[in-house]
């Protein structure tokens, strides 16, 4: 047990801190398009600075470092109030673990460098938590040019940033003669493919980040399958492990930033806080700190290259608890002002409600903890 940085970690932290001071944008624009653009520039800058893909193997463009560096990155970005790092851990690892050499060479550089944007087409109107129930079909057929292609028909929903994405990692039903868990495949689909259409969903807090994606006889080469046909379910499950880890998706940085801003506002008396509000802020810090320490523990226990296990659901439940509490406290302390002005506080609050829905709902995470961590019976 050693919570101090070793010399290499300390040097990394120092370099990172200095870099953030010079490169991090203070504010992101509110307008969706401008915001995405600014985030993208930020992610490209992070990549050029050498801060993306820290734990990713060197041969695929990463830095091959121990997972604790991801925790350091998140802590430092959060402490400096910088925007989060790109949430690419799940897609990059899916391609690394299951992709062919050609696919790895083709897609990983763009993903890591944030020059090519990806979205993840999993959920469907009738398949949210029950991913095995998806109905989007990809039939292996011969097209007019006598080439083997997957012809895709169906609909995806809640596809984050689909509107701005160039590629989609698509989970589709391909093996009609197989049981549900062997019937799915993971396809790599260019969003510009004829027959792919994207409709924005405006969120409850007025932003544009989700979309519905429609597939109408959209065709991709048969080679665009990740892993083997029928591996889709296995890949999806592994990838969700990465999606659930708060450090994998840069979540902690965002939460620390929010608390830091609130504390600054109270210290500088821009917001007046009485004893019960001050206690509530300390409560939020206690929860957030537990999350941070727990993620450090998770990262320390995750050996290089090993994929996250079902314990990741504990992290997801802890991040949800911390985020939802933090947002209650934020609204409590900022008082009526936050309600009279429909601004960033309310947006963050709605986000916190989404935290227990996306990436596997609160209830699914509890099922996983109960059945796969505690060993209670599966029905």
């Amino acid at each position: 047990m050693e919570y101090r940085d070793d010399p290499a970690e300390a040097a990394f932290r120092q370099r990172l801190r200095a870099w953030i001071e010079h490169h991090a944008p203070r504010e992101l624009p509110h307008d969706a398009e401008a915001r995405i653009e600014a985030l993208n520039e930020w992610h490209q800058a992070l990549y050029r600075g050498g801060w993306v893909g820290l734990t990713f193997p060197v041969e695929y463009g990463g830095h091959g470092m121990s997972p604790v560096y991801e925790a350091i990155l998140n802590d430092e970005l959060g402490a400096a109030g910088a925007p989060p790092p790109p949430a690419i851990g799940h897609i990059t690892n899916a391609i690394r673990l299951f992709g062919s050499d050609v696919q790895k060479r083709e897609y990983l550089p763009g993903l890591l460098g944030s020059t090519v944007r990806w979205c993840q087409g999993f959920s469907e109107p009738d398949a949210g938590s029950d991913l095995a129930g998806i109905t989007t079909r990809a039939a292996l057929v011969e097209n007019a040019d006598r080439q083997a292609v997957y012809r895709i028909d169906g609909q995806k929903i809640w596809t984050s940033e689909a509107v701005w994405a160039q590629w989609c990692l698509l989970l589709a039903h391909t093996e009609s003669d197989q049981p549900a868990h062997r019937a799915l495949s993971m396809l790599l689909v260019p969003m510009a493919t004829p027959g792919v259409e994207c409709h924005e969903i405006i969120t409850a807090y007025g932003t544009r980040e989700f979309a519905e994606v429609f597939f109408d006889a959209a065709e991709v080469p048969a080679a665009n399958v990740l892993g083997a046909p029928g591996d889709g379910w296995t890949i999806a499950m592994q990838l969700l492990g990465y999606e659930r880890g708060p450090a994998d998706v840069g979540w902690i940085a965002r939460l620390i930033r929010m608390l830091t801003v609130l504390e600054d506002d109270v210290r500088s008396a821009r917001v007046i806080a009485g004893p019960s509000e001050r206690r509530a802020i300390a409560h939020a810090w206690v929860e957030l700190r537990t999350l941070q320490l727990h993620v450090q523990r998770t990262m320390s226990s995750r050996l290089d290259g090993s994929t996250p296990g079902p314990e990741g659901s504990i992290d997801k439940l802890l991040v949800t608890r911390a985020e939802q509490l933090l947002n209650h406290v934020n609204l409590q302390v900022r008082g009526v002002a936050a309600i009279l002005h429909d601004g960033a506080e309310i947006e963050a609050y709605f986000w916190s409600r989404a935290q227990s829905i996306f990436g596997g709902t609160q209830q699914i995470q509890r099922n996983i903890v109960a059945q796969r961590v505690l060993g209670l019976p599966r029905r």
Partner: protein
Amino acid sequence: MQAALSADQILLVETAARLAEGLGCPPPQQLPTSVDDPGAWRLLTETGFACMHVAESHAGGGAHSADVALVVEQMASSLSCVPFLGQGVLAPELAWRAGAAPDFLAACAGGSRRVTVAFDASLASLARRGEPSVAWDARGATHALALDGDDRLCVVALRPATGFENRLRGTDVTRWLCTVEPDAAFEVLTGRVDAEVLQRVHAFSLAMLSGDLVGVMQSAVDAAVRHVMSRVQFGVAVGTFQAVQHLAADAKVLLEGARSSMWYAAWAADELEPVDALLAARQAKAYSSRVAREVVELHVQLLGGIAITWEERAHVRVRRALLDRVTLGDEFVHEDAIAAQRLEVAV
């Protein structure tokens, strides 16, 4: 950064777990009524667990604070009635840090002196000699430690141990408490104890109490899981039902969060400056105090009716959690202190 147990620590946990199992809480019908269990205490002194954090120069084991917390956790998860935390950990720490003579500590470590800590009547801080106070974890103890008005450490005599007529009928049936008489005989052990030393002892004590809470929670989760796996209703184990599974999952999540905080606080007690160690300890104690009550209540719910009987150990866990959480301050006490520190305006 390595937020993980070392190989040595894993071994230590296994050893402590075996020892704790032998010293675990008996069925509640057989809870101890005698004033002492000398055999159990001898075992703790002979194995070197008592006074394990005290420097070797003072007859202690020289162990790291993080290691001590891991042992505290194991003793708590067996719901042991042996006064390890009070007499084997907290009192020796205070005496050693405050500068008590090596032979005093040698007598504690050897088992010939039985000394525990005393807290003020609200259990919020170390006792002041001459004021109403409570000797904590006092089973078998003849003396308790308190500070006098000049911040000197005193060892105060408890009433003759026979019968413990001044025993409080406290909530926690595993941990004996007794009142310290204001006019009790005492002896001054040290000169004025530095505020920074007291801060370090405070941090250490909060981390160890957090370790005890984690142990109680672990015991609660284990018992709840065992029960819902074996209890059959509607033809299946009740642990098959999602409503039941979700309660168990919530308890597990809170337990692991508490453990992550406690590890850091226990490590920090030896490694960081007193002010930083204390912040880490307050964080862990605030979190574990809040969630421990939640976890033991969840486990009561999962055990169902049997949890409301005397013969089942569920109430023992609840009782121990309730005492631990108020000892040296609950979550509200620590969050107020954290707010005072973190929201202070820099000058």
